[in-house]
């Protein structure tokens, strides 16, 4: 049995940022990471585009991870446990297993930063046979970038999530032929810059409102039947056969909260319900990163997780001082808002949210009892992008509503 102030579970970008900020606030902090090195999924993201917001320079995933690993090293208060797996969280005791055996860590506060997993073929009820050659974009990415192996030569990508778009370009550069990227919705889920740089620049067709009807092939994928769909996702027109040996799925991420039975889960985000201190409904248990809600940019993960780490340290060392608790309501054209609750008192509450549909030249505001507490002007906002609004806690005197004007 070990004891510490804060345990951070997960050593990806969220966990590292949370641990650094926890340590800087004076808390003895342990990071638990199941892989051999810190960095999480960043390690397989060898493309650039990371760090523009946080470091003001363009980095690859491993470079971004490296910078944070160096920051972690500088903090004397941080102990890193890699190749270590958490088997149980009960109260504030974490059971771990690694090659030295099974142990328990008793902490003053816990930060959950376990990230997300990809939605699978089963999650979207992909029909047809179940041959080799159907994999998620992240699996394909790991295989290509970490293992140096190609999952296929003729590829159809289902879903326009960012990892899928990145992999379309990556596999094209490796000599594979990406026949098409299919998106069942009317809008893409990936970033605009990835649509341009990963598909358009390589002349890879993006077929909107199109999906896979059936996978064909007994041992290895031999092709897919694809079809256009209407706004209600019903197949329309004739289905078409596309020959391919690989189907890559980029159909979304799900926070890894399946085994969290000690805290309330937000059914909209699949992450835990948190308040403006990023504390879950379990006292002293905080959450951040893709485990809390799926982010667009790692820089946003870092900023959010630093808050979680600082608050966890405060809790462990002194206990968070919170005022009165109020609800956050997602109003007009807001898909969801995190946190679900805010408190009155000192400091600033950050509201992170996503839009339901494209917004151009509109004010987004936080309203409480007919008073506008905060607002920002959005030139062009997309549902895929995460937005932030800051509200001064001293203004909060009741439930707050977040909405797009007009």
């Amino acid at each position: 049995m070990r004891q510490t102030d804060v345990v951070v579970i997960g050593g990806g970008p969220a966990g590292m940022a949370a641990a650094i900020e926890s340590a800087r606030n004076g808390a003895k902090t342990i990071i638990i990471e199941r892989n051999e090195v810190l960095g999480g999924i960043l390690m397989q993201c060898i493309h650039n585009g990371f760090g523009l917001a946080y470091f003001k320079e363009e980095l690859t995933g491993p470079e971004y991870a490296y910078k944070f690993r160096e920051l972690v090293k500088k903090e004397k208060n941080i102990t890193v446990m890699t190749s270590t797996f958490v088997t149980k969280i009960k109260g504030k005791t974490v059971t771990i297993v690694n090659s030295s055996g099974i142990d328990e860590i008793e902490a003053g506060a816990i930060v959950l930063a376990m990230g997300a997993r990809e939605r699978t073929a089963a999650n979207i009820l992909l029909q047809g046979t179940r041959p080799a050659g159907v994999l998620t974009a992240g699996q394909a990415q790991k295989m290509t970038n970490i293992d140096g192996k190609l999952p296929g030569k003729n590829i159809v990508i289902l879903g326009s999530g960012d990892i899928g778009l990145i992999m379309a370009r990556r596999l094209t550069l490796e000599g594979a032929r990406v026949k098409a990227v299919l998106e069942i919705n009317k809008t893409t889920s990936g970033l605009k810059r990835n649509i341009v740089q990963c598909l358009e620049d390589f002349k890879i067709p993006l077929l909107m409102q199109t999906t896979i009807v059936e996978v064909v092939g007994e041992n290895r994928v031999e092709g897919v039947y694809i079809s256009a769909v209407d706004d209600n996702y019903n197949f329309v027109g004739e289905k078409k056969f596309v020959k391919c040996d690989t189907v890559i799925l980029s159909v979304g991420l799900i926070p890894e909260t399946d085994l969290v039975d000690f805290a309330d889960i937000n059914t909209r985000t699949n992450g835990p319900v948190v308040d403006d201190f990023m504390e879950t409904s379990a006292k002293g248990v905080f959450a951040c990163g893709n485990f809390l809600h799926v982010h667009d940019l790692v820089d946003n993960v870092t900023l959010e997780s630093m808050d979680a780490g600082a608050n966890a340290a405060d809790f462990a060392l002194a206990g968070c001082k919170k005022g009165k608790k109020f609800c956050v309501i997602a109003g007009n054209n807001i898909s969801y808002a995190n946190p679900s609750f805010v408190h009155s008192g000192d400091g600033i509450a950050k509201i992170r949210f996503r839009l339901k549909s494209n917004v151009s030249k509109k004010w987004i505001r936080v309203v409480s009892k007919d008073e506008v507490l905060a607002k920002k002007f959005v030139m062009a906002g997309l549902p895929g992008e995460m937005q932030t609004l800051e509200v001064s806690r001293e203004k909060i005197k009741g439930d707050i509503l977040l909405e797009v004007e007009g």
Partner: protein
Amino acid sequence: MMKNTNNNDMFDYVIVGAGIVGSSIFSALARSGKSVCMIDKALDVGTGAAKANSGLVHAGFDAKPGTLKAKLNVLGNKMYPLEAKRLGLSIKKTGAYVVGNDKEKLEELLARGKTNGVDGLHLLSGSELKAKLPMLNPEIKYALFAENAYVISPYMFTICLAEEGIVNGGRVVLGFDAKRIKKHGDIFTISDGFDEIKTKYIINSSGAGYNEIANMIGSEIYELEFRRGEYFVLDSTEKNLVPSTVFPLPSKAGKGVLVTPTVDGNILVGPSSQLSDDITKTTAEGLSFVRSQASNMIPSINFKKTIRIFSGIRTVVGDDFVIEKSREMPNVINIAGICSPGLSAAPAIALYVLNLLGLDTKIPAAKKIKPYVALSSLPVSKKNELIARNPLYGKIVCKCEGISEGEIVDALSRPLRVVSVDGIKRRTRTGMGRCQGGFCLSKTIELIAKKNNITLFDVVKENKGSNIIVSGVKKS
């Protein structure tokens, strides 16, 4: 492909088809000290109907009295707890409910069960039923409860029976796709175009492929009907959905869509029953049928927690199993149409076949296989002891199921060679969880390649041609 056999390979018995039935017979013959070989075109045992079914040992009230189905199901049901003990496998006596509003039909089933010799049947209704199955649709008024129904892992039984046959002197030749069978005198020669295996007796238990093999042998051909059954597997987070297997009243198409806990802690929902060819695909119609039928019985079922969909083929010949000596060709046993309750009947089918072969059905005590041990099932002190001895047990590869590298290496070091990712999945549950191998596929491929001394490109998902990696990246 490595050479599977020697020219001198000569056996008294060859079993064609390494499903649950073939493997049960194989183990029984090997334990009886007979010279026996089991062949299959697949690269692992149990890759057909044996891996894609409901995983239930039925009590035996459903089959028509006097049929082989009834007789062998009831006997098999009585044998399973001992089989499980001998093989070191888990079996859970969950019991099964047949639910419905047609009380007369349920009473009929009860009477039929009694005729078949099934004990522990009870008709339930009202508060008694509500107390036992509070999640049941309240509009459903009656249930027949069968105490003696079990859930098992059908593929683990198949694998362990095959291993048991091997440790008792039997031979398993996989990847052997029989192309020709000739008979000279009393000796059959089975060839796949490369290698030959000679035998005095053939037991044709090749399931969906029965007629192809029968054609080569010159034994009876049957009109086979293939029924595709599609299933949902729900996440282990849903494990408390139902305490027991819940069926609707059976119909002509089969036992209907059931909802059951699995022995490994998931929930299984299915099957549909569509006449089809023998392709194991899932379809929108099949799945939506399963979904609506299951939701009718258990309204709280959450299909958003689906982690896997699959389909299996059951081969049907008329109303009963075919298990007989061939009249066309001496020294051949025909086994065809082993649909439900085939898994339940399998150990009894083995004894029935021994009897057909004129052998003693009292099998002597034999060598036991080393049981598979899931680390997660052990107490902390035992886990620590294992990790201290081999640190690989502390290195978790599959995070959803908590499977260590040590357990995967163990599965690769057993009497039966494993060359497929799905083979490892069945033996260890690696990749069986909610992420479906998203995080552990690469590592699993690497471990399989290393242990078998093959390249990463040679590692397959399941059968020949199901290679996962196609090439390396460009050289810099």
